[in-house]
């Protein structure tokens, strides 16, 4: 959509907290709660778009950046005030079950996480290429004015894309919360890292996002293994700078 929300990581963190709060108060299966929090956070994303980003649209990209900086501060510290900054963990019912593959054990949660990722990517691909709304979304992304002339309700498309983005972030946050403990500060770096992945992979290219994400993950973990944890974030940005110098369009060409 060519709209950048640096606070996307914060939305993800909010998703994890929404799941955590509903899970602790009702005791439902966290994987089921995930869908509830996806809907809730999706609505939150729509609200952000409607009352925030739409108002600054067309007044320069800088205002979008500043608005998301403000959102980072508000969401992060709002969550700290509401639910304190203790380390929290969502316990899934499968947390003790592992799949034995001989040389390595995988917990069911990791398998479910991988399954969800693949499922979401396939659904997203089908939605974007197969449905009218998805095509309208891509058209709006390519050319805002032309899409408007073709009778697409551009404002609704923007709201929809923000909602979907926020809902997916909530799913990611929940999975993150199940796999590892989290705090209100968990979101900022992954949120910005997500842009790094997208730029490395190529802007607007979904295969690029997958390859970029895998590549970054592998490089990051190898770096941590060989040079220590201090380099975990730094290496992502070193990679970003190298990619931007050598191949500014990213590894894959998007549409």
């Amino acid at each position, binding site marked *: 959509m060519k709209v950048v929300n640096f606070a996307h990581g914060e939305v993800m963190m909010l998703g994890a907290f929404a799941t955590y709060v509903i899970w602790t108060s009702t005791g439902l299966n966290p994987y089921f709660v995930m869908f509830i929090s996806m809907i809730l956070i999706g609505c939150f994303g729509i609200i952000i778009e409607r009352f925030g980003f739409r108002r600054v649209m067309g007044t320069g990209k800088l205002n979008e950046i500043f*608005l998301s900086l*403000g959102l980072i501060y508000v969401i992060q510290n709002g969550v700290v005030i509401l639910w304190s900054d203790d380390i929290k963990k969502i316990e899934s019912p499968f947390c003790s079950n592992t799949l034995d593959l001989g040389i390595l054990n995988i917990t069911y949660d990791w398998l479910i996480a991988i399954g969800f990722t693949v499922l979401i990517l396939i659904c997203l691909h089908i939605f974007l290429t197969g449905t009218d709304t998805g095509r309208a979304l891509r058209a709006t992304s390519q050319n805002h004015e032309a899409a408007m002339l073709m009778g697409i309700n551009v404002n609704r498309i923007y709201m929809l894309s923000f909602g979907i983005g926020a809902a997916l972030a909530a799913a990611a946050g929940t999975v993150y919360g199940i796999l590892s403990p989290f705090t209100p500060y968990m979101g900022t770096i992954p949120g910005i890292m997500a842009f*790094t992945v997208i730029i490395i992979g190529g802007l607007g290219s979904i295969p690029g996002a997958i390859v970029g994400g895998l590549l970054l993950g592998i490089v990051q973990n190898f770096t941590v293994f060989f040079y220590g944890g*201090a380099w975990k974030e730094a290496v992502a940005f070193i990679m970003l700078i190298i990619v931007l110098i050598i191949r500014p369009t990213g590894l894959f060409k998007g549409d």
Partner: protein
Amino acid sequence: MSVKELLGRSTKSPFIIYSLMVLIGLILPVVITDDFIIRILILTFFFIMFSASWNLLAYSGQASLGHAAFLGIGGFVSTIIVKEGISPIIGVFSGALIAAFVGLLLGIICVRLREWFLGLVTFGFAIIMVALINESSVFISAINNIFNMIGISCSLDPDMLGGSFGIYSPNIVSPEHYYYLFLFTMIATVLSVHLIFRSKIGFAFAAIRENEAEASMMGVDITRYKLIAFMISTFMAGFAGALFAPFNYFINPDLFSIHYSFMPIIMTISGGIGTVGGPVIGGLVINLLWEQMGIMGMSISRLLILGIILILEVLFLPKGLMPLIKKIRDRCFG
């Protein structure tokens, strides 16, 4: 924005307001004897300097999200130099110069980038700097080894950058001395930003910000002016950092933190982005508010309030407080 408008705005310089503010600034330490308040005022001047440097870069269309990197470079370099027993004046200037040099290198990477690509790279650069400082012992021992292999004996302390360090004994010690030091550097910074904005360089910056393609068609050397903006801005940021280190008694990698990167953004937007007075007004208002909330014990909620202020300003007051103040000035002084 046409050149005529730019000229018309700069000739109506708010001279009276500024000289009044300078006068108040000069008299204040006589009236206020509380060291704590003086310290807060010094911090305010520091943030005004830092915001002014960020504002200069944003004026040329390049909004950095990791300006703290240069603050840190200035602080660390000057502290190392002063600890070696070299005069603080040389230390401060070399800290600023090295920050400007690193800024030039980063600027070369950023020349082709715009908006959030640029933001991402600058943000990442600050994070890379934190990793470099935290893991510096590896590099310093590597430097030692290389020198020893060539045959020059070199034994730098591998831990000289690790953790927090500092405390060098500058010649000036009392808060009043620091107050005047920061006041005069702040005035010099703001004045030079004012002069730059009115000069040919300033017009080139504004032209690049408004429309890069048109500016290059009119004969503005975009790469050159973008790099000039980066160098001047990072020099100022490095200078502020170099002054901050002795004032704060110690420095640690916190100087590179996101907080220090985002503060000047919030301050400049509050005051008015792209104006000379913006960082001054914004720095005063936001920093005094920040410290007041700190005194009231709102350590988390003040961050929340800062975020709400930023969002409301972007939505409803995108030009900041400056137009408001201009209106009041016009009413008072004709």
